[in-house]
């Protein structure tokens, strides 16, 4: 996993979605019981990642699984960053 990308995504989630940094691990289930994100949050993540990396993750075909955690988002960004 690219730690630099993961850390940027974590920072974006903390800032844009007010998730406490100390409760957010790279493998935390973002849309599960722990963090409890919803559909509005997913829109915010799409915009946040586009601003950070220039990757349009909804246009690039991201699935629900890609939104599962910082780890999966990082992998998706890494795979599409050069596109």
């Amino acid at each position, binding site marked *: 996993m690219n730690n630099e990308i993961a850390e940027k995504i974590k920072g974006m989630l903390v800032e*844009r979605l007010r998730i*406490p940094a100390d409760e957010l691990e790279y493998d935390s289930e973002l849309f599960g019981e722990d*963090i*409890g994100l919803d559909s*509005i949050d997913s*829109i*915010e993540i799409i915009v946040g990642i586009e601003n950070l990396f220039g990757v349009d993750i909804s246009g690039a075909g991201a699935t629900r699984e890609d939104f599962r955690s910082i780890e999966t988002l990082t992998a998706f960004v890494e795979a599409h960053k050069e596109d």
Partner: protein
Amino acid sequence: MLMNERRCVITGLGLVCAIGSDTEECFESALKGRSGIADVKGFDTSNCYSHKGAEVPLTNEQLAKGRYDRTTALGIKAAGEAMADAGISADSEDAAKIGVILGSCIAGAACVEKYYVQKSKGEKGDIEDLKAMPATVIAGNVADYYNCGGITANIVNACAAGTLSVAMAIDLIRGGKGEIFLAGGCDSFSSLAFSGFHALRALDSNDCSPFNHSQGITLGEGAGVLVVESYEHAVARGAKIYCDVLGSGVSSDAYHITAPRPDGEGQMSVIRRAIKNSGLDFTDIDYVNAHGTGTAKNDESEFLSLRTSFADNDHVSVSSTKSMTGHCLGAAGAIEAVLTVKALTECKLPPTTGYSDEDLKVLKEKSGDIDFIANTPRERADVKYAMSNSFAFGGNNASIVFAKDPNKLNLLCPKQDLYVTGIGIAAGELDEATNTYTVKMDGDTFKSYGVKTAFLRKLDRLSQLQLLSGVKALEDAGITVNGENEDKIGICIGTTDGPMTEIANFQKEIIREGIEKGSAFAFPNTVYNAAGGYLSIFTGIKGYNVTIANGFQSGLQSICAAAGAIMFGYENIMLASGTDECTDIDIDLYNDLGLTGEGVTLGEGSVTCVIEKDSSAAERGAKRYAKIAGFSSARDTSGDRLNNSRLSETALTKVIENVLEEAGLKAEDISCIYGFGNGSTKLDDFEKEVYKKIFGDGIEVKLIKKEFGEARAASASLQFAKLAQDIHDGKFENGIAVSCGTSALYSALLLTKA
């Protein structure tokens, strides 16, 4: 005494929106299916995926004389037409009796934008724009414009605000608090709302066509105002009567801050409430002007609600006029109420537009027995009862019923005594670094009430303050919300400035980054009723839900409105709050306005009081702090009406006389006044002087703002809560809490030993 025995009638209509500059023109356009939707002209949308809007082609100067925010100017235009239609001229004796209840969602958004554009360039923001920003000033400005001397309120429940305003006017008339009201709503087209709905991907890239393609909304602007009057008053002055307004329903989804419940439960609840409160059956309704926004989530749940609610009704016609007017947010319900009255009285029902032949086939299959009016109007001579529905952010639902037939008046509940049975206080402490009184709260504060981080992180500061006092009040009252009582409990919140921090930050962000870069996460918290919505979602309260923004006294006016909601049998228990925040934004705004310093220290807080009817308190064995023996609001238009921060000895004296009369007490029976003085010599001297004239030298006046700062609506609620606690502690038997608002509006409540 039965509380719902007074007939309320509609005697005047005023309307301005993208399909016309008066009621006749708008109604004719609606019948012809003429849409007001076009490419947005007010600001640059070139980087957005949608460019559609329904703007009014009139300048502010064409809408109103003088300098007003566009939302207020639209309200002035529609109010003027409604008054003229009702045969009442400004400055007349009848005008002096008129109260003004207006709904708004985005309030002075045009002035917010202008102010922060100036600031972004390093200029000093224009103080006139600053004064025009909050919803708090709208109704007072409209009332002052026409010299209307009745009470005012701004209802700020987002897209349900216009409908709620009409509902509140009926309640005030039936509660004996006024004879005639201008009731409706107004909202301007704004970059803030466009950016917010754009961020949520909730805008249609084409003209919206509700219940059809359902790809999103098209925003609009406008105002609708109805003259709501007691039948006796209308007859006595020989007024033309359009129809009766029978009753209303208000409910909460307790589900999500922006999305409606997919099962339509909250919507069905509000339809059921409105029909019951109007003394009707589901089979009586002939026409429904639907909320019908054009988003998939709304249209699916609303279609389900309508089909389920009217399953046994084989003659109900339904349409959404938003397909032509656009979604005018806080004005929507009022605009649709005016169109509904016209449809009912002229027996011509406007259509929903935008259906192709193929769309019509699909519609026929899914609408079942409902006569869904598409593209062309329906002439129905048999229409007697018509309903208009609005569903808003925060899960707020509101519905009103108009009728040609007054005979089915519903006689609701016998009058009962009301008690304060719970108090929750989140009060500020002095922060020497900022010289403000702020509330100390963090994640642990909320964890002790079972609030998880996943929920709390969504809440802005105002909503957190409101949630804290709300859960404290429920705990103090010993109330657990459950399936048995969830729809017999309601919420009424008063606020002076609402979520001004969220509004300002959102606007600053889109000025800096572009309209297309608005935050979907932040936008829902820019609506004034988000705090009430979150409280309902967390606690599961599904009853009445209204937020009033009307100056400092909002924290008392919310208690008056809560008392009304119980008196009319809507709920057994109401949470009545006053809430205002103090952030860097608030500090800057109040400093720029010159309202701080010279003895005034800004504060924040939230205070929630549980108001409960006698039978409910008795059944629960509830602790009773004190009994509400009288409540009143009053206004005065003498003096300089262009100065909406003027003081009025007449109005202050009147509210005190009113509550004394209602309680059957004399001035000498009152031991203590919890007043609104905030350290400003002018305000404090004025207040003391008036009390001295009414009560003499001996009256004890307690000014809590010395200890907690000027926390605005929260201070007003705190005055009331402290008074209740003093009476409960046996310090005295009778006391009054009083506060002031904009445009010389005052509210007072008299509490007595339980």
